[in-house]
């Protein structure tokens, strides 16, 4: 459930930011924004034309309608917001006996509200507001869960799922962003600022770093900062904490495998980051890929250890 919600919140923020681009930027920036979204999600929109359109904003706006529909309401798209919220709701239904009424009804009402809408209805008004609202709905849900859920294993698994998904999405987004906006090219500063926006890190970055969005510093912040809730380092730290609580003092067998993996992955950031050679984007992307692979392995270990574990009975 938490993974679907994390993804839904992420896509809402991507679209919210993309509407900023549509409103304020030239068509080329809008087109690059779409590329970043689709590349980070590993998806090619069916039937959509992603070729650059330099001069005709109207055509781009028509494309935007198709693409937003694809990401919000397309029935065949597993990353469409409606699908993600629907799956989160189905998951919530399966464990509803351990969720309180507020948690369930927040999610249920958000889903029913979204299901009752079609893009053509919201497009004529303020479509950006719709995605802001869906992003807020996900955060409200997580806030209520945070404030009310009993801190047992269920809660820690909820948080584990949330951070596993967040790290996956952030790594994929950074990877896509670096491909489109190489770090050694400072013409793209505004896009790095957009990236901070998607990761809800712009205000903190300005306060702690600079109003200038230098790519290296932005990456440092989004990957290595230990207090930014959307950074990769913070997410890995949270996973490590949850695993410690769930496994208790046990340090034997497969429970230790996930802990070992998380320790190794954190070491990649503690010791290998930042990658110092200027403009060596390939090594940054390799690091991001390694983190993604490790987090997937951790997820699989958690699954094997706590859910699909083998049953052994001692004879006699």
């Amino acid at each position, binding site marked *: 459930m938490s993974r679907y919600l994390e993804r839904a919140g992420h896509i809402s923020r991507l679209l919210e930011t993309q509407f900023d681009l549509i409103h304020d930027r030239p068509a080329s920036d809008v087109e690059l924004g779409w590329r970043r979204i689709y590349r980070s999600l590993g998806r090619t929109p069916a039937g959509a034309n992603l070729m650059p359109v330099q001069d005709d904003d109207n055509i781009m706006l028509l494309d935007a309608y198709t693409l937003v529909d694809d990401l919000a309401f397309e029935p065949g798209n597993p990353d469409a917001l409606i699908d993600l919220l629907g799956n989160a709701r189905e998951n919530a*239904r399966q464990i*509803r*006996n351990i969720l309180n009424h507020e948690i369930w*009804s927040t999610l249920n*009402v958000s889903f*029913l509200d979204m299901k009752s809408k079609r893009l053509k209805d919201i497009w004529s008004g303020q479509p950006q507001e719709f995605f802001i609202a869906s992003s807020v709905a996900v955060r409200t849900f997580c806030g209520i869960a945070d404030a009310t859920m009993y801190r047992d*294993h269920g809660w820690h698994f909820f948080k584990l799922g949330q951070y596993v998904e967040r790290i996956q999405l952030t790594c994929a987004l950074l990877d896509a962003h670096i491909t489109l906006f190489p770090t050694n090219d400072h013409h793209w500063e505004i896009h790095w600022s957009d990236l901070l926006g998607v990761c809800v890190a712009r205000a903190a970055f300005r306060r702690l770093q600079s109003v200038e969005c230098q790519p290296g510093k932005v990456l440092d912040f989004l990957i290595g900062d230990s207090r930014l809730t959307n950074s990769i380092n913070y997410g890995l730290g949270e996973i490590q904490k949850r695993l410690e609580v*769930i496994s208790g003092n046990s340090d034997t067998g497969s429970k230790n495998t996930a802990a070992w993996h998380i320790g190794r992955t954190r070491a990649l950031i503690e010791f290998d980051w930042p990658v110092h050679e200027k403009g060596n984007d390939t090594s940054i992307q390799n690091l991001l890929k390694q983190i993604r692979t490790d987090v997937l392995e951790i997820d699989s270990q958690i699954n094997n250890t706590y859910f699909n574990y083998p*049953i052994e009975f001692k004879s006699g």
Partner: protein
Amino acid sequence: MVKNHQIVSPANPDNSEIKESGLFSNYEIDPLFYDEMFTPNGEPREHYRILWETLNSIPFEQIVLLQEQAERSFLQDGITFSVYGEEGAQERIIPIDFLPRLINRSEWVYLERGLTQRLQALNCFLTDIYGDAKILTDGVIPPDLVYGCPHYRIEMVGVTLPHDVHVTICGSDLVRDNKGYMVLEDNLRSPSGVSYMLANRQAIRSSLRTLYRSYSVLSIGNYTNLLYQSLAEIAPTGVTDPCIVLLTPGVYNSAYYEHMFLAREMGIELVQGNDLLVNNGFVYMRTTQGLRRVDVIYRRLDDNFIDPLVFRADSQLGVPGLFHAFRLGNVAIANAPGTGVADDKAVYYYVPDMIRYYLAEEPIIPNVETHLCREPEGLEYTLDNLDKLVVKQVGESGGYGMLVGPHASQAERDDFSLEIQAYPENYISQPTLDISRAPSMGENGTIPCHVDLRPFILQGRETRIVPGAFGRVALRPGSLVVNTSQGGGGKDVWVLEN
């Protein structure tokens, strides 16, 4: 058959001094049917008077808003069921009728006594037929009726249960006509609806807060505590703090909301078959902290699906080896397998005889007059009076497989007649009942709709009944079928203290 009777409107009762909102102005009272709210001359019954006065003082538009508020609360809470049609699965709320049905304390005491008596006799019957079967050898019930029933489980023979409780949870359907209450059927396998009883109460209580306070309505809020207590009492001998789980077929089952609701309210785990396993005659549940022994299973699966090694081999929903653990007495199952034989529509005919046989008492609440088509005279009577009778298929439930003679066409009756003659043992018939009616919300005011009651009776060491019931209402005008799958809805039932 149409009888001569006078239709009265409560809009003009002889001495009414209450200014009306129009809610009841088009409501018609037909003396053929007992009206729960009004006397035959259009006066509100004494215990309904406050409700009548209060609702009459609220503008109709506001009442419509209150009804919508109750429905919205169902939608927000996810109290829905799926309807599968051409456009895929559509979620719909269980229709809720905003007007409660009121029952006097004295009437309820009578019903409690009757229901307790009935469940005790039914449990005695099940203990007997899976034991010495004296009731059969004494000729009270024809043996072939029991042994030929598809719900009879020979695997249960010789199994002894704590306190001889086969049925822990019973939902008996009650109807009323001008002569009084009758038991229409007993649901002894996995009776459902109790969550709607509780949800209806919550929704209506918040919509009609002031009215609810005006009455002293007996609380039904401790139902899940009583259920937990009853389940704990049937735990295997020696287990003092049992681990109880609710076994559900899964999220796509139409009663899943209820399964989730009951598990949550009792604070027990909601499990599916693949969460459980059996080793060395004991049942275990997978948890994130390893295996945990299970002592009591409140199953919401049909017998056929609980254990593929004993019943249906293709069941993906059950637990291999569960029945073996049950027979060993290492786990309790509620309701026990094989209880369906006692709620079979033909066996129902003999419940009054069971009460006399086991308890040496006269039945407190009568059965509906029933004719067994397996008996020559019953068959003849049924075929001769098909246009006046309701014919039910013995193995069916939920309002399916039945013919409502007066509402059926001649062709439908002819087809059914051939079926009955070919398989008489599969059918029973009952007269078309003049089931009581109560005001329900229509588009422009209240309309009279037929209603029934499903109280839930719990049996552990003792019998427990909460003062309330899942009230059902046939919302289609003129319809007698109250099942939610057939256009029925829910109606809150208030049992009054005074």
